[in-house]
């Protein structure tokens, strides 16, 4: 009798423990997409120590990557798209509110020095968006995308156009620089050139109702549309100009859901033959290294699909052969726009190196690197 009671006393906790163990064990069998959550960059260690200083964003938080470690900077908020001023003394970043976003001037530790725009309103319809800040090479002018003017007597919604304002001035001095194609989302990613030139990405629609992205060059402020540097069919966007201004990195999709990372020589007025460095992935936000020898970009890694930072050495451009330069490899657009020319990848294909591990960086916020 005593033995039976003893057995019961021993068996009950054993059964409880085993049953709980089975329950917990089943929980460990969940797939990685369900279990894997991104780490904050500051608790991770980059696999590669990059030269200089870089600013990236994850989940609305600004991070500085320097000497192989991350530091969080800035006040709490929904920050994105940091850019460094040409003299490397300040940051300009986007702060999203509920219904709007504004541009802020920050020091390199993320402290707010000045609010550059005021786009929020109690009335929903009067809110505005400002994105993609970029300062002109001489440091005097701030370029950005802004959803103004609003459509009047049309369906609600607006398109971004490129605006510019004095960096030391006010928003009332801002001027519209491009005329967007309505109901496409508009113009994004301004890159002011030395002088009066401006690179930007225009979204437009063709006769088959397909929406295209196209990199365009505005040579003077009054030219609201600019001239195309890439063809409609190539669907190129996210341009990044090398530090010496002679090469343009870009993301091209050809209208598909996968992308190519391409680099093309740029002479200030036109693009040369484009080289495909990477293809077949979801690449985003290419950014040149300070010495112009390499690119970093974002791409997903692993089953969870979080965007990590990758580094890629850019091989020296080969001299294009006449046969390669003559016919455009990509089909020209219906509108007769200029077409980028593809040159076969170099024999020594560059191998990307994954810099971060376990984070989920905001792919629509290009790294700011100096």
């Amino acid at each position, binding site marked *: 009798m005593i033995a039976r009671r003893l057995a019961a006393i021993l068996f009950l906790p054993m059964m409880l423990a*085993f049953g709980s163990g*089975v329950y917990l064990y*089943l929980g460990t069998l969940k797939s*990685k997409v369900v279990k894997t959550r991104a780490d904050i960059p500051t608790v991770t260690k980059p696999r590669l120590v990059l030269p200089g200083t870089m600013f990236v964003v994850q989940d609305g938080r600004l991070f500085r990557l320097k000497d192989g470690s991350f530091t969080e900077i800035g006040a709490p908020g929904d920050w994105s798209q940091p850019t460094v001023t040409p003299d490397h003394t300040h940051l300009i970043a986007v702060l999203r509110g509920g219904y709007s976003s504004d541009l802020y001037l920050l020091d390199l530790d993320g402290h707010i020095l000045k609010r550059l725009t005021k786009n929020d309103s109690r009335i929903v319809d009067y809110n505005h968006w400002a994105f993609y800040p970029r300062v002109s090479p001489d440091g005097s002018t701030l370029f950005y995308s802004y959803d103004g003017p609003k459509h009047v007597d049309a369906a609600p919604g607006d398109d971004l156009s490129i605006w510019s304002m004095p960096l030391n001035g006010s928003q009332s001095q801002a001027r519209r620089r491009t005329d967007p194609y309505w109901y496409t989302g508009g113009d994004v990613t301004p890159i002011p050139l030395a002088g009066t030139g401006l690179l930007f990405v225009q979204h437009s629609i063709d006769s088959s109702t397909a929406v295209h992205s196209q990199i365009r060059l505005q040579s003077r402020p009054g030219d609201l549309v600019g001239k195309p540097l890439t063809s409609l069919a190539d669907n190129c966007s996210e341009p990044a100009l090398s530090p010496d201004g002679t090469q343009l990195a870009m993301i091209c999709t050809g209208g598909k859901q996968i992308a190519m990372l391409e680099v093309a020589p740029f002479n200030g007025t036109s693009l040369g033959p484009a080289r495909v460095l990477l293809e077949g992935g979801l690449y*985003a936000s290419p950014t040149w290294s300070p010495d112009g020898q390499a690119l970093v970009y974002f791409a997903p890694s692993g089953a969870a699909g979080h*965007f990590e930072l990758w580094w890629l050495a850019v091989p020296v451009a080969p001299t294009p052969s006449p046969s390669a330069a003559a016919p455009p490899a990509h089909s020209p657009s219906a509108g007769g726009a200029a077409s980028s020319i593809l040159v076969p990848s170099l024999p020594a294909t560059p191998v990307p190196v994954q810099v971060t591990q376990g984070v989920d960086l905001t792919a*629509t916020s290009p790294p700011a690197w100096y």
Partner: protein
Amino acid sequence: MEGRAPARRRRASRLHPVRLVILTLFCLVLSGTAGAAAYFLPVVVAGVGQTGQTVVVPPSNSPGLKVTPTPATSPGAPFTVLLLGSDDDGKNKSPLTQSMILVRVDPASKHVTMESIPRDLWVPLWTGENAKIDAAYAYGGAAGAIATVERNFHVHVDEYAWVGLKGLIKLIDLLGGVDVFVTNPVLDDAYPDDINGGFLYGYKTVAVLPGAQHLDGSRALQYVRSRHNDINGDFGRSARQQQVLLAMKIKASTLNAADLPDIVNALAGNFKTSMGLDRVRSLLSVASGFDLANVKQIVLYAPFYTNYGPQISGQSVIYPHWTQILAVTKENFP
């Protein structure tokens, strides 16, 4: 004393090592089964309450309810699912379907065909009355939606699956978000602000920027629900819905049985389907061998398949070009 000795021996024999081992194993199996049952309990409950929903499809032009015989399909044979998405925010007692997608799944070849049906399409409902097709679900539930689609598109719908907005958000979050390439900025100044309570008819501004990116549930919903600043209107939204659906499928291809309780919790009250476990298994099999090249996407863009026309009773409607629509539907949904 001697008379008690056999009884003691009998009791002692119950604790014989062999019996002890058997008893131990029995207890372990019992407790392990109980642990597994507790783990999968939400799945069982949901399986009873949300899957295998019986649908009695009414015949066309008749308000009466008669059972439409479902052609017998052998396991592994292609089948067609009508995906329905609703803003189950309480605006309407019976929600409209903001998203209707015909999906044909061929488990053998792992081919998937998706055809989005514009919500504003002006069609005769199964009752014979004309209305926007998104009202079919509101008036007749899944059966009404299926009957209306079958009547107008000349297809047989084997199954349906309905998901509410909140369920979609939770499901995408459970999957850890989805990766998509956003082709152009999606800005909307009149996006419904109805998810988190408050004024059901309120609106807000949203902005989803272009480029490859990782979307969480809320942002993904903004991407697939926004329509006011899209030059393609509802058609553009349909294309975005298919895009996110494919991105979800890519993520879902790595799911396994241990994820089921989480999925069920995420979709609690926001999901209904007529599919039984056999069909779900077929879908999972297609998802596991997923290849984008095996997916065909069809959006009934204007002006070829449809046309914008005069408003009816203040409603924006789209008029079908049935010759073109039926041709493409017949070709892809034989």
